[in-house]
């Protein structure tokens, strides 16, 4: 076997090996549970819904939209914040890691009643 042929054979074997291990990896993964998607709408000066109840450890996707100006979704106790830009959907993954009731707020000043623009998330076992 020429050196060139030998090199090609080694490369082919390596590729096959990598593909096989990927296949094994994919097969070994348990089916991912479908994450719950929760839509939340912001407008001056409230969030709808203004309260959510979530389960500890159960991931959810928040789909955030704004009906008017740019808003900031901030849930500091659970370490989540994101800008909500008009005409776009902002997706935020949240995995509550502790129980309790936590305040979320708009943290981009948006007008006269900005300070009242908040809500709560209750996380239960």
């Amino acid at each position, binding site marked *: 076997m020429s050196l060139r042929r030998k090199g090609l054979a080694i490369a082919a074997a390596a590729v096959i090996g990598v593909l096989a291990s990927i296949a094994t990896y994919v097969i070994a993964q348990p089916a991912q549970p479908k994450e719950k998607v929760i839509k939340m709408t912001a407008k001056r000066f409230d969030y709808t819904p203004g309260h959510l109840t979530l389960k500890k450890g159960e991931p959810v996707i928040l789909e955030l939209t704004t009906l008017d100006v740019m808003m900031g979704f*901030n849930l500091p106790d659970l370490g989540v914040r994101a800008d909500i830009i008009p005409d776009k959907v902002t997706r935020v993954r949240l995995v509550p890691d502790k129980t309790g009731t*936590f*305040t979320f707020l708009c*943290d*981009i*000043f948006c*007008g*006269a009643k900005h*300070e009242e623009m908040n809500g709560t998330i209750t996380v239960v076992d």
Partner: protein
Amino acid sequence: MAHEINRRDFLKLTGLGGVGVVFASALPGVALGADQDEFYFLQLSDTHWGFEGPPNPDAKGTLKKAVASVNALDYQPDFIVFTGDLTHTTDNPVERRKRMAEFKAIASELKVKPVRFMPGEHDASLDNGKAFKEFFGATNYTFDHKGVHFIALDNVSDPRALIGDEQLAWLAADLKQQKKNAPIVVLTHRPLFDLAPQWDWATRDGAKAIELLMPYQNVTVFYGHIHQEHHQMTGHIAHHAAKGLMFPLPAPGSQPNRTPLPWDPAQPYKGLGFRGVDAELKEAQYKLTEYPVIKA
């Protein structure tokens, strides 16, 4: 032989006029220069001119009463600073300017000059400080007084509560001109640290400003925003929040919402007031005195 008494002599003689020193902020290792001397300034904050509602039935009178109280002080300060939220926010740009004009006219009744102004989010966040600049000038600036370097930081013109990279670079360049043991006072509106992020009592990139200030040994921050007296250290840097002059707010995180505390008819103006700051550089400390709107 008669001699003019200074502020410290006055405090000793009067026992502080009955209001009391409530906090002394140390300045360890401060190096005195030839031009340094003790002095005295006032911090007024969160006047929210234009606010109307049950938390203050005397919304149109409180600021005027505070101005009269300042003018009636037996010993007048070297200067006065307003640390933001001069006006209460409005979506209407014409009304915003009307409120600023009215506020400025009332503040002009203060006998002491200079009076320095800073914006709060109510003044500046809806138009990136445009109206504020028309009436009061720059939103961030520096000045020096008797050897103390003052830095006014704007953390409100960006509605996202950001100081911003450009202003942080400006701050870094300014600090480079200072000795590491120079006495530095930072004036700002929002707390630079995370006091209560769930109430938006924070500056999103405030940690970057604190990081720039940390190498300097004698930094003290005076701010507003939270409508109450509050004192906190971040490392060796002391942060002092002032009372407001429209309505008091609850203690950080003490209740679900940051709603104004109710007006108490039995104790009108309770929780409101302004602050005197005695810079006693020879004793290496600032002494803070809290004054009520109306002297009892």
